[in-house]
């Protein structure tokens, strides 16, 4: 009713703005030319190159390993932070959890670089990246867990107490099952934040360790080949499949009810 033609036109233009660039990336990934300029002919060549690019595969492996360790640690610490934020009025904790998320990423990146080198005298590499990723992931997990806790009826805990449950039993049999979906969602989010991160990784990676985003960055900067198109296309395709799958398994995640 109140969706006039102008509104439609503006919205469609915005959609086109969102999709046109990605469509072009996909199309050129099949183009038989090094230059992303004119259409020459169809080829699988760039995908073939991609799966034989050892540096790229190592980078993908690193990204995965880092994301796994970082997300597991962040889930543990973030869940604790979420519980603490919900239960106790800790201004300091609130601030510490939100600060790394609300600041431009470059600030976290350079301050961690300084800290690792100047104070810890740590050689930059896997460990420094993992620590940095845990740092910015905790906040996201904590906020999701806290949001879930807010929606839980407090009388449940009172009931547990009245029944004589110990703190551990209350947590194990009441709190934990209730917040489990939030914990999982937070963990998955930490995982993707980590695997996706470019800026903080850029400053804390040192030289030896490449991650996928760092690899893509240097490819864009130094030598652009349609291999970048190929890896981007694969990433997008898989996302699409996963989202379709996810909408079947857990519709709530899609609606953002976390």
């Amino acid at each position: 009713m109140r969706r006039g033609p102008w509104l439609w036109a503006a919205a469609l233009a915005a959609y086109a703005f969102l999709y046109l660039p990605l469509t072009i990336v996909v199309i050129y990934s099949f183009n038989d030319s090094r230059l992303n300029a004119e259409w020459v002919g169809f080829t699988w060549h760039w995908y073939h190159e991609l799966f034989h690019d050892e540096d790229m595969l190592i980078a993908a492996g690193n990204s995965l390993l880092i994301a796994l360790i970082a997300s597991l640690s962040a889930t543990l610490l973030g869940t604790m932070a979420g519980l603490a934020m919900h239960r106790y009025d800790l201004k300091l904790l609130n601030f510490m959890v939100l600060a790394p998320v609300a600041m431009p990423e470059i600030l976290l990146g350079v301050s961690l670089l300084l800290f690792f080198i100047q104070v810890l005298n740590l050689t930059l590499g896997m460990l420094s990246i993992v620590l940095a990723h845990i740092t910015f992931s905790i906040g996201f997990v904590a906020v999701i867990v806290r949001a879930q806790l807010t929606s839980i009826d407090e009388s449940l805990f009172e009931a547990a107490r009245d029944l004589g449950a110990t703190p551990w039993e209350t947590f194990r049999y009441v709190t934990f099952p209730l917040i489990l979906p939030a914990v999982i969602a937070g963990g998955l989010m930490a995982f993707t934040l980590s695997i996706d991160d470019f800026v903080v990784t850029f400053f804390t990676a040192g030289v030896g360790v490449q991650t996928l985003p760092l690899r893509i960055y240097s490819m864009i900067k130094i030598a652009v080949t349609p291999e970048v198109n190929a890896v981007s296309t694969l990433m997008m395709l898989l996302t699409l499949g996963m989202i379709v799958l996810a909408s079947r398994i857990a519709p709530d995640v899609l609606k953002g009810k976390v």
Partner: protein
Amino acid sequence: MFSRKDNIHEKHEISVADPYMNYRLPFRAFRVFRGLMFFAFLVQLNCAHAEDVLHLYNWNNYISDTTIARFEKQCACRVVQDYYSDNEEMLAKLAAGATGYDLIVPTGNAVEALIRQRALRPLDKSLLPNLNNIDQAYLNTVFDPGNRYSVPYAYTLTLIGYNSEKMRELQLPVDSWAVIFEPRYLEKLKGHVTVLDSQRELLAAALKYLGYFANDTDETHWKKARDLIIRAKPYWAAFNASSYIKELTVGNIWLVHGYSNDIFQADLDAQNAQRGFRILAGIPKEGAVLALDSMVLHKSGPRPDLAHRFIDFMLDGHNSSELTNLIGSGNPNLAARRYIQPEIAQSPAVFPDKTQQENLEMLRDLDRHQRRVLSRIWTEIKLR
């Protein structure tokens, strides 16, 4: 009542940060699933080998794959390479604590910096019989007198690269920096010129054009160079690190301030694509920057034995020539010349003659104050 009010107040404080997450959450959640695709990659990953490994920290695309393969076969070891695209980047990363490299290939000034930092291992020349192959002109530099730590590997010049057809059409000189800096020439080239996105290189070219040394550190001279650059800047298309190779090849950029090996690469690509023009290199008569890259042993490297073997291997004429044939780099190895393709050997960018050699300068390292001042000048150049 009071606590309620407190709560509202507190909400307010974080109202900016809070939505940051709440709204980010739904679409961040989708990224979750993307991660899973990387399992596919993992399957492909090779298991780690337990064998002899040489860690090489080298310029991007600065050694031929065949050369690497031959060395790996000869020493029954594996060569692992990491890359950098800028000396500053390499130094910064080493300063940031990168370790484990047996061999690095820094440019002269970076060699000097590394020596002064005591980051290098002295060479054992008894293990390097092929050192005799190196042209005396490239030994005993100011950066490493007596070559205690470094052995020349290859060099590049920072030159003018140009589209042969366009420059002939426009009748512009290609033997002077004037064509990069003078508006009277640039008018005809507006939007078709790129310069290097490197503080030192661009400043050096401007200083050379003004008749100063590339290593001049007088601030008033720097400011003159800055003004020259700012005056020419509106005519340039971009500051560029390496994508000018492609732009030259497709004929979009006609004139560059660039590295000799990049210009060589652009020429090869243009010929392969049968573009109908060549990409040629011109050595400016005012002089240019010569970047001599040398092999050095980093102290943190666990395998100096393999590193020495590698250095001697690379000093062999045939092995050394492969790099020049591949990327058109300048070659300090006298024994290599007979293996180098005649057309490449004729290029002044690969083997400059004696008079040209005299005008070539190697850049020295700057101290911290000079670095800071240069950084400010660079900011001014970018912003004005």
